[in-house]
């Protein structure tokens, strides 16, 4: 899907958008130079009307994609047209403005429009790049598979730790309970590992940061270096192996969450700004004619 919204129907909507741009630029260039470019000239009104209709139509995509029974073109075609005509909108609106900017409601609408289109461009980039990365990262497994594998490792680690002194149980249990994945939006996007673990230090316990299960692995390695019986040593080796595997799985899970969040996060800018833009366009049109 990701490539096909760009290439949809042999770039049909790219050509439509280019044609629209060419017509707008031609009309702008051929405009009587004695009539300085302005939103209020005949061409200005034409481009403004065109831009407003485009904005309404582009926003209508949010409705169309939910109309599963609609037969008015495919959603794929709509999205392709949405992308290309959205890009053409920038030019149409800039020509409508006659490149006059100021601290006013009119430029507010223009700025919102540009932000909406920029976030849309970001979204298209995400849709082209990220699904592939998502697949590569998952290596054929789903997210629940990753979670299950981690669960499985946890269960096995608990079992191994059960046969070791109390400190090890605390290490493994706290390590499992305090492993953080996901959480806030920022944590998902940044993909940061805020996990912690409780380390037995002498008679006491200390809570330390445990990114990538590092602290737990280091503690285990330190314990291993001390002399101990063969059975304990074997269990320690098993625990270390389990934690290293868990670390890899956690990395992939975090990356999966990050990629998925990136695929969605731009919409939290694109959609509200689009609605804000619709409001700003309404304000723009009303105020232009309020003080005609």
């Amino acid at each position, binding site marked *: 899907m990701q490539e096909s919204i760009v290439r949809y129907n042999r770039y049909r909507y790219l050509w439509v958008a280019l044609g629209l741009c060419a017509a707008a630029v031609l009309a702008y260039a051929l405009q009587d130079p*004695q009539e*300085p470019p302005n939103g209020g000239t005949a061409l200005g009104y034409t481009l403004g009307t065109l831009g407003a209709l485009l904005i309404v139509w582009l926003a209508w995509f949010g409705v169309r994609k939910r109309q599963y029974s609609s037969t008015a073109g495919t959603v794929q075609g709509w999205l392709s047209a949405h992308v290309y005509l959205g890009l053409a909108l920038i030019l149409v609106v800039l020509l409508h403005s006659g490149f006059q900017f100021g601290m006013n*409601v009119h430029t507010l609408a223009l700025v919102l429009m540009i932000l909406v289109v920029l976030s849309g461009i970001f979204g298209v980039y995400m849709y082209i790049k990220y699904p592939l990365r998502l697949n590569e990262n998952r290596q054929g497994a789903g997210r629940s598979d990753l979670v299950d594998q981690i669960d499985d490792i946890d269960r096995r680690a608990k079992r191994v730790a059960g046969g070791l002194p109390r400190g090890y149980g605390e290490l493994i249990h706290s390590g499992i309970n305090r492993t953080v*994945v*996901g959480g806030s939006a920022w944590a998902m996007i940044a993909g940061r590992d805020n996990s912690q673990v409780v380390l037995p230090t002498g008679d006491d316990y200390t809570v330390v940061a445990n990114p990538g299960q590092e602290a737990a692995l280091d503690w285990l390695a330190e314990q291993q270096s001390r002399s101990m019986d063969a059975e304990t040593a074997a269990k320690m080796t098993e625990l270390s192996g389990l934690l290293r595997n868990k670390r890899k799985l956690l990395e992939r899970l975090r990356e999966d969450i990050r990629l998925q969040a990136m695929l969605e996060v731009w919409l939290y800018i694109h959609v509200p700004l689009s609605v804000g833009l619709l409001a700003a366009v309404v304000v723009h049109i009303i*105020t232009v004619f309020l003080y005609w």
Partner: protein
Amino acid sequence: MRYLIRFLSQGAAGSVEHYDKIVDDPTITIGRATDQVLHLKDKRARLQHARIEVRNGDVHISTRALAGVTVNGRSQRDAKLRTGDVIEVGSNILTIIEAPPGFDFAFTFELSPDATSDELTSQFGSLRLSQVAWSKRRLSWALAIIVIVLALIIPASGLLHPTAADILRNTVLLPDDGLWLAGPVHNKHSKSSTQCQHCHTQAFNRVKDVACLECHQTDRHVNSTATEAILGEQRCASCHLEHNEPPELVKQHQNLCADCHADLPAGVELAAATDFLKQHPDLQPSLLRPPLANDGDAEWTVQRIALDDPRLIDRSRLKFDHSVHLDAEGLTTPDDRRVLVCTDCHRVETGGARMIPISMDEHCSGCHTLNFDADDPDREVPHGEPEKVLQILIEYYSARLLGDDPQATGRRLRRPGQALTRADRDRVAGEARKKAMAVAQDIFERTTCANCHEVSSTGEGGAAPWRVEAVKLTQEFYPRAVFSHQAHDTEAVDCGLCHAAADSESSADVLMPGIDTCRECHGSAVARRNHSGQIASTCIMCHRFHTPDKGSFP
């Protein structure tokens, strides 16, 4: 109440391991939410699924979930619990056990052996953005409402009452209708008012002419106070646009003129004109015409004559040869030999609109002295009436004959103290008059005056029998156009580019350029369609809107 919860899990090789949790609460809440005492990871469980509490001395489990809880295999909404009862919530099994000493109630908690991971929620927090981010819908509404309130509703509240508008404009953080400005207000306008309502008197209505007429006079445009009727459907703002960038209060748009001048009603003398390059009549100089009657009081008239018309003759009645004056070899002047240039005589008025008028005193007398006697080159006759000239000459020669000038010819010797006889006096007067007439005839008919002026002999017996025709130079050849020599940079540009003066031998030549000369630089109004690099020239570059004395509108 002191509860004991024993968590059971499958250990290695089928052994069962347990952890104990002690709860000192009156109630044990059970559910999927993280704040529940007994936290379930089961998707089928509600966030707050059930609660265990003491009622009337008995321990009860109750739920508001429609599915209820299964107690001993029977789905129930509320059940009294006894030791040995087995409760199922989704895949979780709670078994009531005998409370050990020190506890009021105890149960074990374990996962059903046939529970699948699909039914369980992850041990981790939220893994999808949609679970934690704000709702897009709510963000959208918030942004739309902020925009509408700040950019429309609050500024618009100023329309209700002028005081409200003032409060908004004078409070820094409150948005006012300045946010609606589509472009800068022209300097002059912003100085006279900062209130939008001064011009925009009615919401959703175009600015009315009345608003302009409060300050502006209309006599530049129409010779009447009844502007509405005369301007028809046109408003002031049809041509005078505010809030444009760049600021342009006078619309240059050619079609404002061309719409009417393409096809003027019958009976109008003007030729059609729609574009300087494509459709514009050739220029017709307005030439001064001397009065037909020779009575001296008649007015000079103005006649517009086409440049290719054989009648195109300048009839200023001045004899002047531009080619001689502009001789590259130079001219003999009283002082020295000098090469004259155009600007020695033709200078632009301050402001550049017109040329300073040519006058004898200013421009000619430096070289053209009015002396008459080679023996006395400093003496000159005045530039004026023939009678006065003759009178001066007679007085001059009388004095010479009677005075002390030893060189004077025809002086009669007489003894000191001897008075002139009447006969002598008459004789001297006669001689002086005769001499003066001879000199006058020479300067009027052949030399000084006749050099520049048309002089005719009246043949009458009057005091001075000559008539010098009055001279009047045309000041404005194109009075209906606005032309500024300064704008054309005459300091740098050779005058000869437009005026073929160097080859003109007669003052009858009209040295005004035609439209083709203008078109060498000035092109069509639509500059972008010009390929020759001409200056885009609209009507208003040279012409003004109808003025009361130059035709009416429409």
